[in-house]
């Protein structure tokens, strides 16, 4: 078990390293940097600009800067943010926490709804309820995420039932502990719902097909022939076997959810890493961009790693192979 774990961790670490080099090099390709627009301002002398650049080490060649940055990472220092005039790490930490809150909630809702829906569709395959469900999922899948999120925003604006942005209201500071939690929940509802709806249809489809495949296996027929109740057959026999493809699905869904969360955060103004990344790109705040990209890669790799470990724990065949 530990050998498998160490191998996967090493693989993940190498992957992340490759991503960091790739991203860093890519970012250096752009002509100009954060301070370039300042040069256009006649009131700021060229020397001041140069001084600023030197202060942040922007005048050194990029492999040097990369090495510097990498060393800093091991100390928890992700470089400076030019726009915020503060280190990147604490900035990112806050935003990351918010994104995790959002994606975690959305993922929970999505899976909690998708699993029973998928199972029921599989069991009632071909019947009216399954087909109706199929039509709805197809419809939802066709709607581009962008349009979906804009539609939800429209709903929020027109109905006034939900806040149209932000994580907390202006009166947050004065609320009690419970009040604060409620406030955040109130703001979280719509973005999480949007994200869940975006990822739900694909999940339902995959769960349904995984369950259908499992339910056709001979051992299920044997269990039924033994008189075991359908309920038990589903839960104790079918579901554990379907767990393998479902866990892989979980790994994949992390990736799609991360991409979708970026869009949701921007459109519904949730203060996560999405809007931060966008700002940083437009401002050429390179270390923030780098940190964000690395962070999202870390989430992704971690998600897949967790999925792999779960798979290892659940499926004895994989244990045997390694």
């Amino acid at each position, binding site marked *: 078990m530990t050998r498998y774990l160490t191998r996967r961790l090493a693989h993940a670490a190498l*992957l992340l390293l490759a991503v960091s080099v790739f991203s860093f090099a*890519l970012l250096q390709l752009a002509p100009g940097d954060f301070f370039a627009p300042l040069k256009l301002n006649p009131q700021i002398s060229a020397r001041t600009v140069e001084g600023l650049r030197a202060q942040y080490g922007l005048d050194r060649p990029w492999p040097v800067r990369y090495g510097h940055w990498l060393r800093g990472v091991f100390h928890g220092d992700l470089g400076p943010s030019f726009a915020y005039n503060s280190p990147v790490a604490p900035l990112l930490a806050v935003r990351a926490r918010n994104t995790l809150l959002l994606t975690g909630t959305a993922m929970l809702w999505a899976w909690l709804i998708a699993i029973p829906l998928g199972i029921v569709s599989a069991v009632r395959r071909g019947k009216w309820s399954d087909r109706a469900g199929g039509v709805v999922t197809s419809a939802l899948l066709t*709607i581009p995420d*962008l*349009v979906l999120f804009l539609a939800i*925003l429209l709903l929020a604006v027109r109905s006034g039932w939900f806040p149209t942005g932000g994580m907390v209201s202006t009166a947050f500071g004065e609320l009690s502990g419970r009040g604060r939690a409620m406030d955040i929940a109130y703001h979280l509802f719509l973005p999480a719902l949007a994200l869940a709806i975006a990822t739900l249809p694909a999940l339902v489809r995959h769960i349904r097909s995984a369950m259908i495949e499992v339910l056709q296996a001979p051992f299920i027929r044997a269990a039924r022939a033994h008189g075991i109740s359908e309920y038990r057959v589903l839960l104790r026999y079918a579901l554990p076997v379907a767990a393998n493809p479902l866990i892989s699905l979980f790994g994949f869904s992390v990736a799609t959810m991360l*991409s979708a969360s970026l869009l949701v955060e921007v459109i519904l103004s949730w203060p996560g890493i999405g809007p931060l990344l966008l700002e940083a790109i437009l401002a050429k705040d390179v270390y923030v961009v780098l940190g964000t*990209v690395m962070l*999202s890669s870390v989430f*992704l790799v971690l998600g897949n790693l967790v999925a792999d470990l779960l798979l290892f724990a659940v499926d004895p065949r994989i244990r045997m192979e390694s």
Partner: protein
Amino acid sequence: MGALVLLAAFQFLILFAGFFAPYGFAAQDREQPFAAPTTVHFWDTQGHFHLRPFIVDSESSEARVYPVRFFVSGTPYKIAGIIPAQVHLFGVEQPGRIFLMGSDAYGRDQFSRFLFGGQSSMLAGLIAALLSVSIGILVGGIAGYYGGWVDELLMRGGELFLALPWLYLLFAVRAALPLHISQWEVFLLLVSVMGLIGWARPARLIRGVVLSAKQRNFVVAARGFGASDAYLLRRHVLPQTYGVLLTQMTLLIPQYVLAEVTLTFLGLGVGEPLPSWGTQLASLQQYYVLSSYWWMFLPALLLIPLFLVFYAAADALQEIHKTVAL
């Protein structure tokens, strides 16, 4: 199949946007910002039916009636950017305006901008998909045919690309691009980047096809009369991939169109003066637009049937391919 016909019709509309749109995409009317969609009447206030529809301009003091004319001469445009023309399908006399989908903050006709926007977005999607698929053929073909460590290396590389969240990757690469270069250069760079990121999945599929084609007896037989690898690939193996390629293209194009729209929407894609669905939708991020001007949402709604048609066409093509392939 109906879907394919519809898709072709859409493409036709967009290709000849200049003809179908009453106005150019940049034409502004500062006096009519955020005008609601113009109602087209067939019956007048006295209850008479007119074969030729007309619009009523109620803004001005006289409530002038403008009949809708067909095949009018209007803003010059170029078909496919090359052939100059001036005829538009319909229009009204100045200073009347026919805004089928309303107008935006600058008084620009949303309908015209929708059609023209389609040109940029669809073109971007098409070129990017072609690029991805081309790289996919190259990489997948080599990996599948030669196998061994080449295969391992290439597929691991593909894994790397698939493992990253594509939107973030797109952003990172976009961040690398200078923000102030000509719009055409942005377009080309954007398209190249999207194409370069998405090669992994087509490559993997093509590799599978090549692997199985390689084993087929007629390939072995051809080797038996001294055929070189290049010949085998060209004449026997690659033709087997055409089916997969076609279906991949039909799936990739809408994805890339969406990618371009999303990027432009966020301000990272093409910008003025090139029209795009992204720029049309960008105004929706503003509160007052969403709350007061409902017609601005129409382009978003119209995208839904478009994508529906795309996916249906992809399914239809798959069916056709399955029945044709022996």
